[in-house]
């Protein structure tokens, strides 16, 4: 029961994007970054060779929540922030299913923060895509838990005084076993990250920088637009020195042991950090903080990937062991447990 079951027969191998596309009109604002994410996910899924009948998408409330209606898989559009809880029930009950959670910065980090961190901690076999647009879109433009301090919105006319979350650091702090970040309009990079997330056994957390062109346009321009994106994206690759900006700059160990952005030319090669996704979480945590905001050079890619028992599988194992030890449950025996007496 604990091993990933064999995939169903039939459609496997002949799947296309169409097999994952629901026959519904997509209703995000024209130009919204969500369109690109949807297209990338729909195009990527066929390569898993898993029938859409075995895939479940679960979402919460917010613009991202609509995602489930556009996927021709099994789907639950849940309630605000609770998608990880619903998904935990689904994935734990049915380790044979492939469960994906779609959430946003408000849904996943504000009202649903508790469920998110506990799903990560437990290492439930779910893939969580967090669309971070640093704003509340569906409720028409209030600041979110990832909005920068000073952000002027409808609910903060004098600027927000909240300090934002760093979603990657939060996921790492929650002991997530897979943590990555990608960008809505970089189909190739997102596909690569999705591929690794899908292959990961357990909870995978993927933050996707997503442009809300209506309420927070341009929040990630420094990273997602050409040409400046080329200069500011720090693309993490396991086992490789962390060099970016067309080889000009790197992430290096500074004099005090802290990570710094430095010029490759003036940095001794042994000071350039070599990325290691399997190592201690402190490296990933430091990489999450190379910038405070996506307005400076920022890491994308997989920060961390480690193995830990998968939640539903561990639970199944307990059931197997208990059954081995006590024999399969016998209801009649259970009802007769303890002191009994007979009245004739």
């Amino acid at each position, binding site marked *: 029961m604990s091993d990933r079951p064999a995939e*169903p027969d*039939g459609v496997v191998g002949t799947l296309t994007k169409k097999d994952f596309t629901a026959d*519904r009109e997509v209703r995000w604002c024209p130009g919204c970054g969500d369109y690109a994410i949807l297209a990338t996910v729909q195009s990527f899924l066929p390569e898993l060779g898993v*029938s859409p*009948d*075995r895939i*479940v*998408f*679960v*979402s919460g*409330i917010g613009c991202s929540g609509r995602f*489930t*209606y556009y*996927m*021709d*898989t*099994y*789907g*639950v*559009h*849940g*309630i605000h922030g*609770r998608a990880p*809880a*619903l*998904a*935990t*029930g*689904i*994935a*734990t*009950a*049915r380790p*044979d*299913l492939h469960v994906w959670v779609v959430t946003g910065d408000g849904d996943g980090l504000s009202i649903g923060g*508790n*469920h998110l961190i*506990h799903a990560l901690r437990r290492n439930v076999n779910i893939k969580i895509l967090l669309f971070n647009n640093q704003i509340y879109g569906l409720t028409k433009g209030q600041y979110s838990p990832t909005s920068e301090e000073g952000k002027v919105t409808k609910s903060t006319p004098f600027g927000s005084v909240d300090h934002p979350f760093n979603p990657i650091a939060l996921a790492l702090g929650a002991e997530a076993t897979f943590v990555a970040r990608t960008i809505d309009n970089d189909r190739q990079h997102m596909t690569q990250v999705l591929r690794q997330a899908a292959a990961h056994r357990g909870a995978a957390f993927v933050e996707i920088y997503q442009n809300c062109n209506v309420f927070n346009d341009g929040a990630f321009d420094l990273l997602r637009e050409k040409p400046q994106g080329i200069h500011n994206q720090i693309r993490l690759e396991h086992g490789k020195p962390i060099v970016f900006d067309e080889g000009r700059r790197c992430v290096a160990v500074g004099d005090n042991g802290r990570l710094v952005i430095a010029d490759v030319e003036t940095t001794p090669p042994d000071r350039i950090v070599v990325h290691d996704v399997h190592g201690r979480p402190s490296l990933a945590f430091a990489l999450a903080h190379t910038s405070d905001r996506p307005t400076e050079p920022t890491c994308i890619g997989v920060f961390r990937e480690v193995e830990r028992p998968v939640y539903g599988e561990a*639970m199944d194992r307990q*059931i197997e062991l*208990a*059954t081995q*030890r*006590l*024999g*399969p*449950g016998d*209801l*009649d025996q*259970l*009802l*007769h*447990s*303890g*002191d*009994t*007496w*007979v*009245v*004739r």
Partner: protein
Amino acid sequence: MTKAVEERQRVVIRFAGDSGDGMQLTGDRFTNATAVLGNDLATLPDFPAEIRAPAGTVHGVSAFQIQFASEDITTPGDHPNVLVAMNPAALKAELDSVEKGGTIIVNEDAFIQRNLEKAHYTSNPLEDGTLDGYQVYRVPMTSITVRAVEELGLSRKEAERSKNMFALGLVSWMYGRPTDVTLNWLQKKFGDKPQVYDANVAAFKAGYNFGETTELFGTSYRVPPAPAEPGTYRNVSGASALAMGLVAASVRSGLPLFYASYPITPASELLHELSRLKNFGVRTLQAEDEIAAAGIALGASFAGHLGVTGTSGPGMDLKAETIGLAVVLELPMVIIDVQRAGPSTGMPTKTEASDLLMALFGRHGESPMPVVAAYTPGNCFDAAIEACRIAVAHRTPVVLLSDTFLSNSSEPWRIPEVDSLPVIDPRFATGPNAGTEFLPYLRDENLARPWAVPGTPGLRHQIGGLEKDESGSISYDGPNHERMTHLRAAKVAKIADDIPPLEVDDPDGSAEVLVLGWGSTYGTIRAAARCVRERGLSVATAHLYHLNPFPKNTGEVVRAYRKVLIPEMNMGQLAMLIRARYLVDAIGYSKIQGLPIFAGELEDRILEVMQA
């Protein structure tokens, strides 16, 4: 010396002591010996909210009451005939409840200055006349226990710990309880800890022999077995009956049980019980909060398991959002509310039945759902199966109401034949239901929608909290919303076709007053009605097991009587429903003291209503 043996029909004993004195265990053991003897019985554990309340204080008193009889009884009794008080605080806390002229057995050793002060006694109640009119037995329980276990080389503190077994032994002698039941249990429990085992056995026997040999006690009592239907019996608490009922529903439906819950008094008991039953394929998950517990259970239901969550009032507040989603998703799910005294944190260990209206209406929007209320500890078993049956058959979340009293108290229970239990057919959808299409909200004759679990080829569908039309597509159309609202209501209302009518107990058919109840007041109502009838008067009783929808004949029943009296452990919630639904001028009777209603209190009230 031969001592007199007198026969008694029914006896109420209350064991009371400090939280650390082991009174619940003592009560439990006495209960088991009593059950095996064949008496009918009912118990009422009553303990403080604090885990380790300061020793010797009145609010640290833990008590256990049992009524046992040679006839059918239905309540743990109003006023104890016998109080066993292990210290002054226990005497202080419990004396008022003891019947006039009742028997009081005290641990004399505990009545020292320091303990008297802690209990806020200014003089020793054993000497100042406080106990005049009672039959008082002063037994130096601590010192005799210490002497009895002397040879075992225990520290004094350890030695003293066995004094509850001394008390148990003494009371067991007084009421002729079999000793082997207790001794066997001690063997099972402490067999691998010889010193503890020996100490407990020595103390128990010392207590028993103390009764038999000293001249202090001249008489012991015999309570013959109560007549009972033939069968195999056991003693069962509401909590374990509920747990077994859920497992039975899982076995009889073939659906794996998935129980997600967050620790809360008094519902945690259920989580503990179920988490031991892994070999039944039971998945238990202790969630991060009440909301998640509901969400996880609902997710499990979506995935084709029997999703159940359990909690108490404060948790119900938090689960309302998810229950609302379950109403719209129209998936089977059971939400168990073991009610306790509220609002807010209220009195966590004390009983109340004040979540009825919340179960029916405690969600935003029009969100009807079935409600079932268990009414005796043993009935918790059937109620769990019934809630699961309705949930699965009608594709709906169901609230199952229990309460602290039902959960903690116990009674003899005739063990049912497994084959006699209802079969629950999940009727999973296996193929398209509209030509080649699958419409997730196409309804059957019960207005229930298909349950198509992920993994079923070709039945992919997307459901969610947004309003949808009958084909399952999202719809913001006003008239459609009205139609769907009516459909959801009609679906729940139609469950009335699938439940038995309300039965009335009106032995001579001439009663003018009907006592209508729900939940754990069942025993009290039956006991009170019996007393009224013993006076040669007529009274009818009926008990609602299904609170939504009501049985079809409910209106007919309540309109057939001149007066309808509704006793409740709340401010009159069922009374409000009956008045609103049937325009009947029902009279409420409330008790909200964290304790069950006493049969005597209710009897008085019935007599008043008859005369008015």
